[in-house]
């Protein structure tokens, strides 16, 4: 299982800050499509994905136990 984390506007859109999903073996790009299908409006943003707290590439593959986070455009400072 993969643990998914949602923040800011995406947390409000999904109504949850995290959930588990059976996405091991899928790519980051697959993950984005999965989220866009599940949550209307999700695909409109420009979120990046981090795997285990490092920014990932669309071609990176999720492994069982990974933490994947959707990172909307950041605005700290």
């Amino acid at each position, binding site marked *: 299982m993969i643990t998914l984390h949602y923040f800011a506007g995406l947390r409000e859109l999904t109504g949850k800050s995290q959930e588990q999903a059976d996405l091991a073996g899928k790519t980051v790009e697959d993950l984005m499509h999965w989220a866009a299908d599940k949550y209307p409006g999700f695909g409109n943003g420009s979120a990046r994905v981090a795997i285990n707290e490092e920014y990932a590439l669309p071609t990176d593959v999720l492994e069982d136990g990974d933490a994947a*986070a959707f990172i909307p455009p950041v605005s700290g*400072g």
Partner: protein
Amino acid sequence: MKAFEVVSQPINPQAYADLVLRPEAGAVTLFTGHVREWTKGVRTLYLAYEAYVPMAEKKLEQIGQEIEEQWPGAKAAIAHRIGELQISDIAVVIAVSSPHRKAAYEANEYAIERIKEIVPIWKKEIWEDGEEWIGDQKKKPEGEKL
């Protein structure tokens, strides 16, 4: 306290300046970013910051490492506050020490630019007539939500 951290309590800037002060430092630059009331004619009541804390602290530390590589002899400490912040509260503090002035100034500005690029921290502005996550979309002063 840590040299690179996300905190939920008010920030004391001096504590971070003290962290980077060393005998070989001839300069310490201390930047504090504050909650601003007016942005492009829209009045903010308060801000709500949210972070992916473990990754944010890792990225702040990475910025510190980048600074030490680009400005040899420089040392940084950075803290960002999350939760509800009122007008004029300190949201972020960046302390940089270096043997000479120029590197301390340059590295400090580099740090805030990098924070805005890579550190997973989000800001929601709460106005009199609405609210919005900043960075997600174009500003809608009428307060239409995401």
